[in-house]
């Protein structure tokens, strides 16, 4: 047995030694791991934070980014920003939606309803590119799950135990707060902006938000860091609207399975009691 372990350790050392060398150099700063209300087995969204995040999203992000999978009705559903139905309706009616054709065969504009999708800021990708210096602002519906920071070995193993699923929001928060001056000697292409956390550091999106840009009415500090935190949480909710229910049901499933496993274990022991094995 001892020999086996020794052999294993030697082989493992061999395995680890070579890649580590290869990975040296050219490491980007990893986004800092923030603390989120929705992390961990009992995490839930912070309603007030989602409402603030929605405000930032609506007033800042949505000017250029679409969120095609979001319905107005989602804003009032459980486990989300929990606006009242009247509030969600009021948001919807602020937007004009193209509907039709009517009896005359013509398309027409009408105020939005709860059953409408969140309208995109541009009619098509090409229009979005033209308005944004050739770059296409990505759809934000599931962006919080479509981004992550690379942890590598052995971090990815501990993440399985700590249930770390917030790589996307950490990255978004880092990106939004990561607009700094390019280091000396860095060649920035024209039309691009330097960002500490964007892969390659050259991002088409200019610094999207500054202190005091969005008005908070609940006394929360109106800083870029706070905006980023709130909008990241909001984007996480947009990407994973049933997270609260998932974790709640998960706990119930765990309690049930643990009790069942316990009962089965003792049943098994009893059945095998008189059989040497």
């Amino acid at each position: 047995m001892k020999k086996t372990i020794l052999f294993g350790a030697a082989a493992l050392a061999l395995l680890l030694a070579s890649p580590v060398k290869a990975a040296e150099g050219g490491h980007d700063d990893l986004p800092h791991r923030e603390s989120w209300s929705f992390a961990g087995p009992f995490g839930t969204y912070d309603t007030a934070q989602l409402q603030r995040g929605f405000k930032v999203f609506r007033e800042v992000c949505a000017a250029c980014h679409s969120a095609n999978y979001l319905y107005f009705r989602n804003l009032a559903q459980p486990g989300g920003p929990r606006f009242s139905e009247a509030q969600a309706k009021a948001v919807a009616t602020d937007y004009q939606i193209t509907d039709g054709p009517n009896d005359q065969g013509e398309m027409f504009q009408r105020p939005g309803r709860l059953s409408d999708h969140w309208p995109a800021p541009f009619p098509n990708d090409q229009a979005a590119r033209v308005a944004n210096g050739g770059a296409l602002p990505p759809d934000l519906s599931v962006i919080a799950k479509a981004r992550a920071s690379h942890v590598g070995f052995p971090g990815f193993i501990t993440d399985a135990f700590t249930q770390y699923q917030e790589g996307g929001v950490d990255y978004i928060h880092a990106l939004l707060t990561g607009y700094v001056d390019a280091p000396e000697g860095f060649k920035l292409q024209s039309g691009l902006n330097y960002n500490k956390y964007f892969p390659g550091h050259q991002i088409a999106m200019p610094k999207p938000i500054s202190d005091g840009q969005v008005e908070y009415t609940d006394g929360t500090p109106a800083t870029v860091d706070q905006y980023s935190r709130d909008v990241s949480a909001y984007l996480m909710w947009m990407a994973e609207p049933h997270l609260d229910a998932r974790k709640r049901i998960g706990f119930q499933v765990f309690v049930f399975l643990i009790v069942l496993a316990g009962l089965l274990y003792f049943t098994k022991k009893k059945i095998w009691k008189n059989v040497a094995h």
Partner: protein
Amino acid sequence: MEGHSTYQPKSKVARWFESRLPLVGLVHSSAIAYPVPKNLNYFWTFGAILTLMLVVQILSGVVLAMHYTAYAPVSFARVEHIMRDVDFGWLIRYIHANGASMFFIAVYIHMFRGMYYGSYKAPREVLWILGVIIYLLMMATAFMGYVLPWGQMSYWGATVITNLFSAIPIVGETIVQWLWGGYSVGDPTLNRFFSLHYLLPFMIAGVVILHIWALHHVGQNNPDGIDVKSVAKDTVPFTPYATIKDVFAMVVFLLFFSWFIFYAPNYMGHPDNYIPANPLSTPAHIVPEWYFLPFYAILRSIPDKLGGVICMFGAIAVLAFLPWLDTSRVRSAKYRPLFRQFFWIFSIVAVGLGYLGSQPAEGGYVIASRIFTAYYFVHFLVILPLLGFIEKPKPLPASIADAVLAKNGGAGGATVVAGASAPQTKG
């Protein structure tokens, strides 16, 4: 399966039915009366766990298919529709997506158990080969399933893997276009993958029936790797002994499974697959699902494309020849001191290849991949055949009952030297 049943239909109706179709007798002989070696450990519960996973995948998959649409412009949105708008759609999809990973975790444990205890040796060669066929079908199914959400990794994974066939001389290009149904991965590809993804699990179910049939015909191997000498002394009936143990193991496995479904549902996936497929933008690193990574590392370690493809498929094909590559007559690694060490080295190499497959193909990673790939084949083609001649196995217990007695601190029972009762090697 046959010959163990003590089933006697009691009622008149049951007798009438049994004499026309002996179905109840078949179930009775294979799931109730079937003799199971006493000394099986928990690694022997993974067959049941895998059966459970196949059922879970088929049931969740059938429900997903009710809400999914295989049409390139809408497939990504349809999956999001399932995640957001379908009642408990998120649950069913997370079960299905993580279920694939769980299926592979269970199958890898099942396979390594078979390798450790020599479950592939006579008379279980056909049983083992059927298992390799199931594994191949699983890989095809999983690969095509991963394409269906039509995210970036779906699209580019499909592009990379289907392109492998272009390495075949002369007809390669034609075959690839035939697979695609066009000049690139596109809507026709998505549709046929969906069709096949729905078909293959039922083929797996068919081969699983053969696999279980073969198992019940030759009987289970066991941690001591010795044959059952006396059904009365060495075995217990499947029910209740194996059933209760299997059900307990299944529930523990479900706990592990639930951890990922409910708390880390995207841990096994790749974030890029939440970006809709875009033929004009290649992801920085195209990585297959984790369970393909060792083979992906082998593929990339060979500088020549055709050579890489041959080695990758060869790495799987070599498993089918394992019963004849291993020349030792002793089954269990418990009694094979040398083999046991090489088994663990091989395991580390296999996991290491998986890690290397997830890393970019550059610098030290490539060199490490080449060393590990070489070792992978050396293990099967050189070490295993030679070990049978070099190794001096430990004495085998005379029977399973003796082994159990010895383990429980009894008198130890009579042991015989392996070489005395059976020649150690073929040859």
